[in-house]
Each structure stands twice: as C-alpha cells, then as structure tokens.
C-alpha cells in the first residue's frame, strides 16, 4: 500500500460520506426538481444536506449554492459577482488558477505577497478604490499552506472599496480551519467536497444574503437560478456527510496531524542537507500568519522535483509539486514565484500534505525514503 502524502490534491472519502451516498446511487434516484413522491424524497435529501452544510459553514441554508466543484465555485464567485455588479477585479498573486485566471479574464489586478505568502495589505489598500467590484483572497493557500489574514483583508476592502464583493477560496482550509468563523467576514466562500472526504465534482459557494451574483451557466431554476442543472443528489448528500464529519473531527484532528507534520518537517530537515520549509516554519494561531496543519512544503536545493517525485513514487511515497499542465508536465509554480523564489528554487519544491488517514507509519516511510532518494539524486 502506498504512503499517501498528497491529501491537498485529494483525500480519501470518509466512510460516512460513502454510506450516505449509496442509496442515492441506487434506489433513491429521483430528480429533486420534480413534484411527485420519488422527486420529493430526493428534494428532501438535498434540503437536509443544505441544512447540514449551512451549520458547518456558519451560514443560512438559503446561502448555500451547490456547484460542480471548487473551480466552479471560484469561477461563479468571481465571474458572477462581476457580472452582477461590474467594477474591476482584484485578487492575491497566490490564488488558485480557478480564481487567478477567472480574474485575469476580466483584466484583474494581482496583489503581491510577502516571502511567507501573506498578502501585502498595504499593496492591497493601494490597489483598492471605489471602482473595485470584486476582491478575492484565499483563506489558506493550496500549495504552501499559508493562512491569510482574511478579517484584515475584509476590513481594508470595506474601508477602501465599500461596494466591492469579497470572495474567499476556502478550498484548502476546510479540514484545518473553522471556516464558519475565519471566512465569516467574506461575502462569498468556496469549498470543494473532495478536499475534506467528500466526492469529487461537488462544491459549495456560500453566497451571503444581499450579495449580488449573476449566473455563469444558464438553464433551470435550481439553486435559485445561480447554478442551473439537475442536482447531483448523491454528491451533495456525500458532501454534507463528509463536511459534518470533518468539522466534528477537527478539534482532535488538527493537533494530531500537526504533530505528524512537525515530525515529518523536523525529520526531513535533520536528514537532508539544506532542506528548508518553504515560506518559513509553521506559526501558531489559525487566522494569523500561520500555515494549515496538514501542509509540509519544502525546498530541496540541488534536486529536481520531477526526479525526486518519480523516485519517491517508485518507492511507494506519493507526494506532489505545483501544478501540472495539460500534458501532465509540472510547471513552475506561480505561487512560489510570487513568494520571491527563483524558477530554479521553484523546481526544487516538493509538497507533502497530510490528512485524516495519515499515520505515524506514513511519516516513518517518508522519512526513510526521501533522504535516500535525495542522496541518490545528489550523488
């Protein structure tokens, strides 16, 4: 069995989610938009899921919009808010491509980050003016794990661009941060089910009451017209079950995983000459300038990430680095370049990410394999 340390890419489904979904993949097949008994049963399942998601994310059920995933939530947020209100678009330089490229398609401006990956609030303030319509700053970075000071971001936006809609991509944050609180000040919040033990292809966009949002897709009246298309009932039910379980597990999971993560990071630093944690070590204090508990992103000087990952893979350790292009080739990470790293440094980066199924044995395996691999590659 492989040592899986790529939970930030996707994490195994929680058993609660699988169990909740199965009936909707079999006998409970109804279309929730109908009116007969079979349809009503499906409708109830979606409504129950919506209630549960609202509790977990600290919003009203009517503020939950189910989508086809994190990328779709991000696009709906940026494109939909812009479509409804106009104005210019501003986002941080370390956003996921789903936000970055959506913003770029609207001629958006990006705000630099410091070497730890924290958005520069002064630069943000300077970039804002009453003509700004959408501001998007992620809650936690998917590559290096940096947590953004979202409350401060929102305060700056309210002062300098009072009409702007604030979106936060919370996709990488859900297993680790209390999104209900830390994303509380944002008008729009994206999450993706498969990052917290739900199925792939389901996302949520929280749309706070009063936030104007145009549709990006055109079609039926589902999700109040904001996201037309027949509901993925099983996926939505699985999302709610996984999210409820993830939130319940968070108080014990975060310290457990953080301890494993620290052991991995400390062990790698001790065993591999020159290895450093990207964007500095983890600082405490969720919501402050720390990193999420599951993220161990490192730079291995003199080693090419493609080579390290291939040998680690062949030795049974799954990790990753940056984003892949359509061919599957790794591209220099825009996040690392935004942190001020050179292209060569970015090519030495490897991301280990931990999750709810990570055990001591996984860390042991990584600490055995990775130093050996690095030694071979540096020989």
């Amino acid at each position: 069995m492989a040592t899986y340390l790529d939970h930030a890419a996707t994490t195994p489904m929680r058993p609660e989610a699988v169990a909740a979904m199965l009936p909707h993949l079999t006998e409970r097949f109804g279309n929730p938009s109908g009116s007969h008994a079979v349809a009503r049963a499906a409708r109830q399942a979606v409504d129950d899921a919506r209630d549960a998601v609202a509790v977990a994310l600290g919003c009203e059920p009517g503020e939950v919009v189910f989508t086809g995933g994190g990328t779709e939530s991000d696009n709906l947020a940026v494109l939909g808010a812009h479509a409804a209100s106009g104005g210019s678009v501003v986002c941080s330089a370390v956003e996921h491509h789903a936000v970055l490229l959506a913003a770029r398609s609207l001629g958006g401006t990006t705000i630099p980050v410091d070497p730890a990956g924290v958005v520069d609030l002064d630069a943000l303030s300077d970039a804002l003016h009453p003509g700004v319509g959408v501001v998007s700053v992620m809650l936690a970075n998917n590559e290096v794990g940096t947590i953004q000071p979202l409350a401060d971001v929102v305060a700056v936006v309210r002062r300098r661009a009072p009409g702007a809609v604030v979106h936060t991509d919370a996709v990488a944050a859900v297993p680790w941060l209390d999104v209900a609180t830390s994303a509380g000040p944002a008008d729009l919040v994206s999450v993706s089910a498969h990052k917290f033990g739900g199925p792939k292809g389901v996302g949520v966009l929280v749309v706070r009451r009063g936030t104007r949002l145009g549709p990006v897709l055109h079609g039926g009246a589902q999700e109040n017209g904001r996201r037309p298309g027949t509901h993925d009932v099983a996926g939505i039910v699985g999302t709610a079950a996984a999210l409820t379980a993830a939130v319940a597990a968070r108080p014990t999971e975060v310290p457990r995983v953080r301890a494993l993560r620290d052991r991995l990071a400390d062990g790698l630093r001790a065993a591999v000459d020159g290895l450093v944690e990207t964007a500095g070590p983890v600082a405490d204090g969720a919501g402050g300038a720390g990193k999420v508990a599951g993220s161990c992103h490192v730079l291995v000087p003199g080693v090419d990430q493609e080579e390290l990952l291939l040998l680690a893979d062949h030795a049974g350790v799954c990790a990753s680095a940056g984003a892949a292009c359509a061919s599957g080739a790794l591209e220099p990470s825009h996040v690392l370049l935004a942190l001020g790293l050179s292209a060569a440094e970015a090519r030495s980066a490897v991301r280990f990410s931990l999750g709810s199924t990570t055990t001591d044995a996984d860390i042991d395996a990584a600490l055995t394999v990775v130093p050996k691999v690095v030694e071979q590659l540096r020989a």
Partner: protein
Amino acid sequence: MSGGVDSSVAASLLADAGHDVVGATLKLWGGASDSGCCSVADVDDARRVADEIGVAHHVFNFTDDFDASVVAPYVGDHSAGRTPNPCIECNRHIKFGTLLDRARRLGFDALATGHHAGVDGDTGRWRLRRGADRAKDQSYVLSMLTQAELSQVLLPVGVLTKAQVRAHAAERGLRTALKADSQDVCFIRSTEGRRGFLGDRLPLHAGEIVDSATGAVVGTVPAVELVTVGQRRGLGVTVDGRRLYALAVDVDARRVVVGGADAALSDRVGVCRPTWVDGPLETGARAVAQTSAHGPTALCTWLGDAVVFDEPHPLVAPGQTIALYDEDDNDTVTGSAVAA
C-alpha cells in the same frame, strides 16, 4: 515515448523482453505547436500506450533546456545566415543529454528510443549502425553520439522495418499502430511556418540577390535570414534561362550570392564541432559522407577542418550536419561534424 508508433513499439519490445521499463514523454516546447512531440494528444497517446503495455509513464518538463539548447541556437543561427538542424541539436542536448543524465541519476541502466538505427557492441566498444529499414534509417540524426551515450542507449526498433514496427503495434493492440509519422520541426506550426516563427523572434531583413558570375544585382529576397545555401526554389531568379542557386548568405551585408548549377557544387566543405563514435579519424582518412537525413552518400577525405569530396557535391549549408560513415562499411557511423 513521443506518442508515435516507433517509441511505442520500442517500449513494448523491451517490456515484453522482461526489462523494467518506465515510459517518459518530454514536454519540450511551451509555445504553440501542431506536430512533433509536444502536443497534448501525443502525450495522451504515449500515456495510453504505456497503460496498454503495463509500464509506468511520466512527463518530464524540459522546456527551459529545450529553449536554451535548441530553440535559441536555432534562432541565433538563422540570424547569422546559417541553417541549423534542430532535431539533431535536440538529440545532442536533450534526448541523449539532459534525458540520459536524468535516466542515470534515477538509476536506470539504459535509455531506449524509437529511432531507426542500431547499436551493437560485440567487442565492448559500441558501434552505431544504420537502421534495418533503409528508407527510415535515422543514423544521420544520431551521428553525434559517442561511446559515452551509446554504452547506455538501446534502439530496439532499429532491427525492424517500419512495416514490421506497425505490424507489431497492431498485433500488440497499441493505439498508435496506424498513426502517421511526425514531420517537420516540432516547435513550428504548419500555419506559421519557419518564416512566421523566426519573424516573431528576430528581425528579418530584405536583401539583394547578386549573380556571382557578373556581380550584378538580379533580384531581391524579403528575408536574407530565411535563405539556405544550396536553395534554388523560392528565390525566383533566372538569368539567361538558368535557374540559380543560393551560394552564400551574408546577413550583415543583406546579400545573397547566387550562381548556376556548376557553382552550386563544391568538392570541399569546411566543418566544425566534430564528434566521434569511437575515436577521431586521422587527417587524410577516407570516409563516406551523408549531408542530409536521407540524402545520397559521397566518398570523401577527412581533413580535420574540412571534408573533401571525391566528386563535386551539392553545397552544404552552414549549420547542417555531415554524418561520416566507415569507408569500408557504409552502414557504420564514424562521427559527425557541422558545416562551418
């Protein structure tokens, strides 16, 4: 694994022979492309063939190296009036350079490609041979290889004809069995051509065409940098009913010198950057030269800084590779050099 049938079959033959094979596809070009080894559809084919033969497959991003070692020199050569062969430079620097280095670091014993050529080494020294299929022979584009590379290179399809390669792929159920061969330079789109590609990357200069016989200006060209020595087509110059060839390109002077068929032959070509499969030829040694991928061969004498042909030979454009074969065994590569 480029996603073509030759490298598919190379991988399949080695996997079937029991080797521990890992497929690698190189992402070489970040820009627009419609052929060659860089398109996503080709990577998909390579990955699916790897699945079909049951081996792991990885994509390596060598775009920076490719840009520095192949594309930039290609542009630079043209700006100096030379006509390089980027496929040979890719073989030299990328496939049998960067990739072979990586394969060694990763602990592999050998690098296999789908080239139609042979490597054999009965004596502990390695020989580079023409492929069994003379029409598909690629020994010319591998002629820069030396013992250092050949000792770790396998060319499994070199003993097969192309028809046999396709038959093997079909029999093995590989999806690339009927795929057309790649053509042309992988980083240049057919819609933009060499002119469009280079025009985006360097200033192209119009120039005059001068007749070598009379010194008279007999025409103009829109871009001196795009003229290849030896070229006749496309110059649009006839003098007294003679079709003229480009004899020399002088970018600085914005001038192309042309002449008749006799002037477009020479018994001597200056060379640089020689490489040797197994030690250098001595000055004065006899050899067989081949000056293009599938061109005719010519008996010659090696002079160290020049090749002298026994018979007058069509001009070799500066930047083109001259592959040298054994005088007594026209199937064995001796070395290579680049026309100066």
